[in-house]
């Protein structure tokens, strides 16, 4: 009765219209030196909170972490939603 082939494997963590509400996102932070961390956080979390989460996972101090995208340094007091950091985005992990 059931065919073997599957038509689609839908991987969806988010529903279409989510621009207004808070949602859980997973952000990938990579420092290109071997540390690649996936952090689950809310879209309303600030960068500072994210840094803390990263620190917990990587083992560095959170105030030593600098998150960047190309030359844009993400400031601590702005939320991820305001920075339009979506689910699955890659952030560059640097240290100061």
């Amino acid at each position, binding site marked *: 009765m059931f065919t073997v082939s*599957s038509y689609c494997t839908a991987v969806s*963590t988010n529903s279409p219209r989510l621009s207004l509400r808070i949602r*859980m996102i997973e952000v990938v932070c990579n420092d290109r030196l071997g540390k*690649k*961390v996936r952090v*689950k956080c809310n879209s309303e979390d600030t960068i500072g909170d994210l840094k803390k989460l990263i620190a917990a996972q990587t083992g560095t101090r959170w105030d030593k972490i600098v998150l960047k995208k190309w030359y844009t340094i993400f400031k601590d007091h702005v939320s991820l939603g305001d920075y339009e950091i979506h689910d*699955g985005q890659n952030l560059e992990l640097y240290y100061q």
Partner: protein
Amino acid sequence: MGSSKKHKEKGRDKDAEERHREHKKHRHKERERDKERNVTREREKRKRSRSKERSGRGSEREGRSKGERSAGEPRVKKEKVEAGYQESPGIGPQSASGDASLSIEETNKLRAKLGLKPLEMTDTTKELGTKEQPMVAETINPVYIKQQNEMREKLAAMKEKRLLNKKLGKVKTLAEGDWLDDTVAWVERSRKMAKEKELAEKRAKLLQEMDEEFGVSNLVDEEFGQTKKAAYSSRDLKGLTVQHRMESFNEGETVILTLQDQGVLEEEGDVLVNVGLVDKEKAEKNVELKKKKPDYKAYEEDESVDDMATFKPRTVLGKYDEEIDGEKKKSFQLSKGGCAEGERERELQAIRETLRNQAQSLEMPALAIASEYYTPQEMVGFKKTKQRVRKIRKKALPDELQLDDTRNTDFGSRVRGRGRRQLDEGQEVSKEGVIIPGLDVPQQSDDIRMADMDISDDEDFIPTELAVLEEDEAEQDLQKQLEKQRKKLKQKQLLQDSGEKVAEQVPWLARVDGSDDEDNKNNLNIVFNATSEFCRTLGDIPTYGLSGNREDQEDIMDFEQEAARDGAGGSDSDEDENVGWSIVNVDEEQKQPDFSTASTTILDEEPIVSSGLAAALALCKNKGLLDTQMQKISRVRAPTGALPNDNYSIEDKMTIDDKYSRREEYRGFTQDFKEKDAYKPDVKIEYVDESGRKLTPKEAFRQLSHRFHGKGSGKMKTERRMKKLEEEALLKKMSSSDTPLGTVALLQEKQKSQKTPYIVLSGSGKSMNANNITK
């Protein structure tokens, strides 16, 4: 990275297969399956991460995971979720390297520790897994879905059928009826039906009777039956509107009005119109439109006043009101009995008229040019001022002195001269000392005029009359004086002789003296002073009398002033005076040159050295101090260019030295040597080219220019030149007497060899041997 992707895919596929297997087996155990999937996924991931291991994080972990895996697989189906999670080593990253992530629960724990809100869990996040462990959604099986739909439809159809059958089941078909078989039953039924009918009729009758009792039958009849309507009389016309102007109906004519077409849904009252009138109105409107009256009057006022004295403000773009709001139709309503008397209209008209009459026109009286002269009406109240004849001190005055001085006087003008005279009572000012007599009557200043008037006529104060009179008198004055002037000129012309003039002057003077007793006694004796006369002869310079270097100047001045005071006649006397003086001057001039000539003849011998250099030289010459012989001095031929002058030099712009003009200049010695006059060399300049040939001037110049410019001819040119040279050389080599091939020489040799004076020309070459013919 690509390889890792492949790994991932493989892993995914594996997972899918596993899932499917599980799907088949454990269809209803969704939750467990999911969690198991998670666990397997993790395991897979660990496998993968190990495969691309970079930082070698924890081989112990590897071992652990391996062990777990091996242990976990049999546990997959049995164990619950928590066990799987408990295996993970705390909060740190679970895998060796690469993607490290915490699960939601762990994250929440961490967040709680940090003091953050827990993760936002939406429905989707709860049900389906996270990114790293994506939950596979249920496979959409279209076949299955189709089947389901079909089933549903079938069921629905069956249900409907059932219901229908149920309904219809009650109704018996004809075939089912048993009454055909049983006539008795049929008969019974039919009787029953008839009975019921009767009953129904009875009931209806009863009801009707009841209606009649209550008097409702009429109404009922009206409603249901065809009732004859009552006659439509004029009283029904009350309140209807007629959509025409009252004025369009004339007395005595009958106009048929019809109901105007209205929309079905319109519930407004009926409107009566006459078709003809409607058309007429339309035609009129069209005519008006055709006239093309201007829509917009730019100068229209903001408010216009209506007939009824109501203010109607000017609307913006009023021409479109009709279009927007709709045409305003004039109409009137019929009153009781269908009459329209139009009383109201008449009342309004009456009101309008009254208002119009009451209105005040804002027009001013027309502006007209004011007339310069009084009209006869105005002249009635106009009184002439009395003329006050001023008593004048002067005697022997001409007639015209009877003028009223108050008008023809100057008021402090400078021409009068210095030393203002005391004014007599009444501001009598002396007449202007006119050298040009009576040219202009001095303008009276307003205040003095006023003063005059005040003095003269206080009662009759009419200013304009005075001015008019004054002007007339002034004109008369002027005319008289001009006449006098003309007379005088004529007299002058007649009396050419100076002596006569003098003679005339004396009695005139005497006459004048006689008039002025007080001051003119001195003037009987005319004093002639050399210097004064000389000064006078300088000419009729306006400085006459102004330089103040004359003894009798004051006298003259006084004389003049007193003459001025005479009035009109004063000018005449002045004129005569001047004439007299001029005459006198002529005499003096004549005397002067005689005096000068006399002096020169006497002093011929001794010129006055002081008179000038010429005189001094003349003196010397006379005395023989000067040598008057002219000596000839050999003139040295000056070189070109003027002698340099230290004190002054004439700068001529043409000789300004500039380097270009200097070029042309030859500064050498222009003169030939005298000793070398006989020397006449024979100069021949020969130019030679590199081969030794003599060059023509053209070639020589070419050579020079090549040398000068530093570059010679081009390729072609040189080739040509070479060719030419070669040709020339050849030409030179050629013998003049012989042909180029040396035929003559050959012939001569042949002759020598043959020892004959002739040559046999034979056609064949055999006769001529090569030995003989060779050169």
